[in-house]
């Protein structure tokens, strides 16, 4: 029995974990084990990568297969980490078309969660750049799926949380970049209205995201720093800078669980205040920052999840359709702020629709926040979830640990088609995670 908790370390669950060292054994495990799900690097926050009965450790599927510089298509086994891809291809001038907030995720995990990055409003999710994938099915077949072959299965697997089968390998596009640097411009928003307006104004930027102070109240509610970014060209680099800087972060670590009282309303408020003031000093300025600190700031601190202590935390990420976005986000912020135990680096971002059957993104605003877990939190989250789905929004399954089957069903209009497809391929009851059990899938 292994501890299989997600990155948020709530809920704490364990179960049998078997390692697949090649695609053949991974396919066999998928076809023979009951209640099974594949797990990559365990960076989904809640219970998505914990099998109902069995879990396949897919990190042994870590071979790259081929790269075609003409098309930019990289073929890899599903357990290859994003970090390896960047380390290998950035020095050659290639970068993934979409990256999430950590590079310690696998390709299989990125497809199953259909992850998005700061450029989703323009370039879509990771799944939008997948040319094909090979899927091991519960009936023992291995199917090649693409937008043209087995297209329904392809669409259901992108964002399908591993519930259509085990992703064995995939081919996806990398884009060309001139450097490994990002030109970042900081804008300051004194309140939520300004933040939303600034996110719209910066929507032509390749990357745009707002860091939002969730503990600010009253007239400052929703005060934010909007960080806009573009890949720097070679001639925009300061003289003497290397074009493709190697990763520098990863030297710091949280050595053990921090005591639970460390993060309280006062300390987090003080941190957010400092962060906001420091950012505000850079208002309107453009700085050139290396790729790792721009895309993956928290990767610089190993085991950062320990800062929340043994009780763990939940990351809550919702998306709300444009029309009601601002008022619902305000409603959430007011509730979190009065609850007190707020979060570092809450994120507000504009999203465009996703393409997978169960993809999270839709046209609107997404808000992501980390909150230390306590039983008291549950009714608050239930109240927030109800607000979100009443406005036509939904919750991100890769982050989710607490939502109810009702809010899930309300948020995902393609759920019936997904269920039907699972029935047709014999996945119902066979491909099963703690998340799918909790949500009644």
């Amino acid at each position, binding site marked *: 029995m292994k501890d299989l908790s997600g990155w948020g370390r709530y809920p704490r669950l364990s179960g049998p974990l078997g390692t697949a*060292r090649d695609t053949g054994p991974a396919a066999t495990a998928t076809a023979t084990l009951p209640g099974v799900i594949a797990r990559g690097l365990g960076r989904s926050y809640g219970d998505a990568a914990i099998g109902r009965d069995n879990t396949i450790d897919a990190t042994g599927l870590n071979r*790259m297969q*081929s*790269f075609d510089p003409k098309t930019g298509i990289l073929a890899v086994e599903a357990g290859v980490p994003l970090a390896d891809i960047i380390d290998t291809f950035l020095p050659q001038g290639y970068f993934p078309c979409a990256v999430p907030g950590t590079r310690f995720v696998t390709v299989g995990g990125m497809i199953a969660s259909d992850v998005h990055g700061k450029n989703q409003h323009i370039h879509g999710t990771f799944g939008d750049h997948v040319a094909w994938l090979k899927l091991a099915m519960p009936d023992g077949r291995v199917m090649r799926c693409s937008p043209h072959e087995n297209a329904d299965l392809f669409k259901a697997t992108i964002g399908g949380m591993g519930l259509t089968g085990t992703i064995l390998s995939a081919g996806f596009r990398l884009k060309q970049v001139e450097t490994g640097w990002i030109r970042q411009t900081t804008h300051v928003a004194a309140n939520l209205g300004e933040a939303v307006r600034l996110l719209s104004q910066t929507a032509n930027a390749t990357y745009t995201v707002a860091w939002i102070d969730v503990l600010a109240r009253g007239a400052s509610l929703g005060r934010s720093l909007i960080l806009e970014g573009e890949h720097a060209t070679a001639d925009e680099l300061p003289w003497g800078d290397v074009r493709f800087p190697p990763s520098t972060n990863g030297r710091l670590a949280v050595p053990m669980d921090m005591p639970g009282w460390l993060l309280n309303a006062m300390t987090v408020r003080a941190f957010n205040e400092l962060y906001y003031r420091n950012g505000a000093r850079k208002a309107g300025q453009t700085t050139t920052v290396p790729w790792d600190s721009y895309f993956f700031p928290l990767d610089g601190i190993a085991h950062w999840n320990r800062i929340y202590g043994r009780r763990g935390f939940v990351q809550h990420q919702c998306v709300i359709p444009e029309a009601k976005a601002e008022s619902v986000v305000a409603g959430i912020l007011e509730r979190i702020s009065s609850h007190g135990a707020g979060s570092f680096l809450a994120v507000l971002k504009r999203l465009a629709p996703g393409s997978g059957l169960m993809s999270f993104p839709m046209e609107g605003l997404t808000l992501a926040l980390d909150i230390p877990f306590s039983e008291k939190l549950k009714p608050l989250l239930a109240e927030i979830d109800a607000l979100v789905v009443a406005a036509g929004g939904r919750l991100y399954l890769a982050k989710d640990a607490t939502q109810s089957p009702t809010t899930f069903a309300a948020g995902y209009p393609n759920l019936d088609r997904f269920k039907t497809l699972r029935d047709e391929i014999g996945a119902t009851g066979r491909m099963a995670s703690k998340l799918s059990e909790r949500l009644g899938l």
Partner: protein
Amino acid sequence: MTDTDRHNSPKSLLVVGGTSDIGRAVASTYAARGWKVTLAARDTEGAERNADDIRTRTGAHQVAVQHLDILDTSSFEPFLDGLDALPDTVVCVVGMLGDQTRAQEDADHATTVLRTNFEGPALFLEMAAARFAARGHGLIVGVSSVAGDRGRASNYVYGAAKAGFTAYLSGLRNRLGKTNVHVATVKPGFVKTSMTADMDLIGPLTAEPEAVADRIAALETRPSDVVYVLRAWRLVMFIIRAIPEALFKKLSL
């Protein structure tokens, strides 16, 4: 490492045990430094999987796969003579932990463990050494084990085979000591590989396959005779060897 000489073709490496995690890491490290690499393995499909990975990660084109069964000793000569060119370096990482309890009861299993860890690797490197000596230079790296430093109840069939391999490498090194052919014995200690996936390894004594590969590649510029990948192992095994037999036989280490 001297890498590709400006006037000559790239240097070449032969990895015996091309599907092992250490073999993969060694091949990848050399390929990234411009070497031509051949992976020899019984499971050529598994070796091709590693070759594709190495090509994609390093951009190297000269990565080849050859079939070799380490238990088929009569195939060694035709194998070596059939290579495009005699490699500059041969690294043998073949190993099989086996099941100690089963080996105690099943002579066939014990024989396979002994032959895979000792007979095959020793005889293969013997033949490579003869060719290296005739040519006048070369590096031979045998990956042995700290398990061969003293027999223990938990794995003495494997340990005895590795002890034999260690002694063989030592003799070979002595025989070629005055030539330009160097023989190195590498004892990795615990390494995070599929062989040890089910064991609880002691963190500070455990290396990644890439660390083993780096130590082996370092032999190209700084030859060394017996290498403990993590230096702490030299001390640990010194202590374990120093325990009097009368006491040692009652311990469970």
